[in-house]
């Protein structure tokens, strides 16, 4: 490992890259956090949804559709898919631990399906956005990453506002906190669960579209995101809307600085070291 003092332009560009990738961690973690915190289901299929959406976006864009317009098709589709999966889980009374196993299996199936349709080859979405970038001072700002940042921030704040200020959000939080009491107050948990699971899957699909905009796709790459996104969710707090975004950005920037100062191969260590450190020093503050 060789340490080098980075130049200002290198450091600032790296931090910007870290913010962009951190926003994507946050966006991917948002649905996972809600599902885990409010539905008590650890949904590994969240990553499969994101990649499936990314490939659908790629496919539709290849057919001439604007990648952002594909959201109009993809979001409702994944809402229905997420709600359907939740219905099955409720129907068979899947426990949180079993949900982890079940959704892991589903992820493997989704990978095989993606591979059989789009093969194991890398796929790169070529869109008008891919070429676009602009400069702010000495910094280069790529448009696809900026779109991801804007969508991540907007969606995280929107979900936070819904959970905090609407009756629907209050009902969801109440049901997660004490289901029998919430039911006694007339909260329809089944319907709320379906809406929430659908929303989580829809959020995964938005993250998938952002993934397709900025990254090269390969079926097996879905596993490369699991560790770091889980770390963002754990650090951000289960059921939190803004937590994953903040934690994701923190991880993204830390990774980027690590890559700028030391070596890229050290970057993955950062997210897990952060997670371990926070679990040690704030054991009661994570995982809620």
């Amino acid at each position, binding site marked *: 490992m060789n340490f080098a003092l980075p130049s200002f332009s290198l450091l600032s560009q790296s931090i910007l890259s870290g913010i962009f990738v951190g926003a994507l961690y946050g966006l991917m973690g948002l649905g996972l956090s809600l599902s885990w915190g409010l539905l008590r289901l650890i949904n590994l299929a969240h990553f499969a949804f994101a990649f499936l959406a990314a490939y659908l976006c790629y496919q539709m864009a290849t057919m001439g559709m604007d990648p952002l317009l594909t959201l109009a098709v993809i979001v409702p589709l994944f809402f229905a898919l997420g709600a359907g999966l939740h219905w099955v889980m409720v129907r068979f009374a899947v426990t949180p631990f079993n949900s982890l196993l079940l959704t892991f299996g589903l992820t493997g199936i989704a990978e095989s399906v993606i591979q059989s349709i789009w093969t194991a080859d890398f796929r790169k979405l070529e869109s008008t956005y891919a070429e676009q*970038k602009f400069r702010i001072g000495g910094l280069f700002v790529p448009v696809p990453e900026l779109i991801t940042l804007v969508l991540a921030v907007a969606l995280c704040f929107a979900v936070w506002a819904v959970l905090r200020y609407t009756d629907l959000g209050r009902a969801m939080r109440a049901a997660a906190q004490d289901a029998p009491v919430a039911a006694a107050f007339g909260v329809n948990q089944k319907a709320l669960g379906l809406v929430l699971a659908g929303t989580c899957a829809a959020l995964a699909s938005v993250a998938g579209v952002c993934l397709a905009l900025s990254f090269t796709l390969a079926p097996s790459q879905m596993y490369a995101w699991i560790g770091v996104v889980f770390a963002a969710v754990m650090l951000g707090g289960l059921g939190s809307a803004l937590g994953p975004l903040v934690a994701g950005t923190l991880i993204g920037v830390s990774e980027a600085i690590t890559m700028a100062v030391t070596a890229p191969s050290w*970057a993955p260590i950062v997210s897990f070291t952060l997670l371990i450190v926070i679990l040690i020093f704030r054991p009661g503050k994570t995982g809620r």
Partner: protein
Amino acid sequence: MKTQKLIDQSGHADMDQSVHADQSVHPEKSVHAELVEALPKASTSSARTDFVARTDFVARTDFVARTDFVGRTVLLDRIRDIGRRAAIGAIALAATGFAIAQQPAGQPIRIGSTLALTGPLSATAQIHKLVGEIYIEQLNKRGGLLGRPVEWVVKDDQSKADLARTLYEQLVTADKVDLLMGPYATGAILSAMGVAQRYNKVLVHHTLGIPSLAKYDMQFPAWSIGSDPATTVPNTLFDALAASPKPPKTVAVVTSKFPSIQFMSAGAREVIKKRGLTEVLFLEWDFGNRDFGPIANRVKDAKPDFVWVGAIGLEGNLLLDAMKKIDYSPPQHFYLYPSPGPLLASPDAKNALSATIFEAQPPFTSNLGAAEFVKIYSERAAKAGFTDTSVETQAAASYTAWQILEAGVVATKSLDDKAIGTWLKTNKVDTLQGKLRFDGTGNFGDDLMRIKQIQGGKWVVVWPKEVTAGGAKLIAP
């Protein structure tokens, strides 16, 4: 022409059967047999079969035409006519050099292997699958091995080296294959090598990237990278750069930690040091790295004259994409094992360098079987929907592996692994890559890696001079 059409349409198996059927019902059968026997002894068996097919057609036509007025005169005429036709046939054969092989017969010889038909390595393994299919087809058309048809038993190792080990065990013990062929990628090859060693089987393999790990005496590499590629390949590259109009003084080495890549990049660093060049940056990333942005930032910040990219597959493209986002393009750049098609297609890869053992251009196409293979492969790869339909390192190494195995069996006239292994160790084999020897360290021979560059939307070999086509030279912008 008509005869040729018949041969093409009917296929060799049918043709052979029709010959025998005809012999049983037509009085020409003895004449026919005589004609076959009359073939010069020096003729190849393939030429003999072709002759059987052609003369059979001729004889049948002749018989139908003349049975209406059978008599002594006609019979004598016919015999004379057949003799004349036989002579014409023989001359035509000699003139055209056209030969179709003797139909292989008997119990098939089974050659077993695995390939990464699914999983992360499947994109490249598909090339090896297609090449294997083409080779087996060609081999059976040539008469198979030892006069027997050849069957390829290929299993999917799912890009997992541990599964490859189990499957090779299965191939030897349960499937009881006669011979083994190597799988794709270094990890799986090493697994297969362990099994081959346990059962004393010959293992010819396509693309083992780390020769120092090849400890087994009866393994034979088809990828002619020499026994010390970590020194010889970077030396070839820096020789090419030194002879270019703008030799670099500063170098950035960025590399994947993929095993067969990392040691090559380490070798490149040594070569850079020995040549007195300045290494301004050294970075490593894990295979499967998602984000190349920070690496691109580091390279840009280091301002090197030349970038050695120890990349495998699409990593080179991903790095170029990230560089483009920060408005940077490296002055001169080399990619170790890129996916050649996608790199060629990238507008940012202009003048990119890479290494190769074979390109579909002269003088490589003059090597044994090259011209025909290049043509067939391009057609079949296009049909299979491959993005790159030209023959380069992967396809060439794969084809070479089959050539080596065939040469061993043909030379020893046996399927005895020990005999084949001994013969290969002491003889050179003429292949698509040229003549290969297996008497060096780890059975590796000469390093035949050449330097190629993207020029005018094509890969062009630019070094060493003796293998360049049309005076191609390295472009140093």
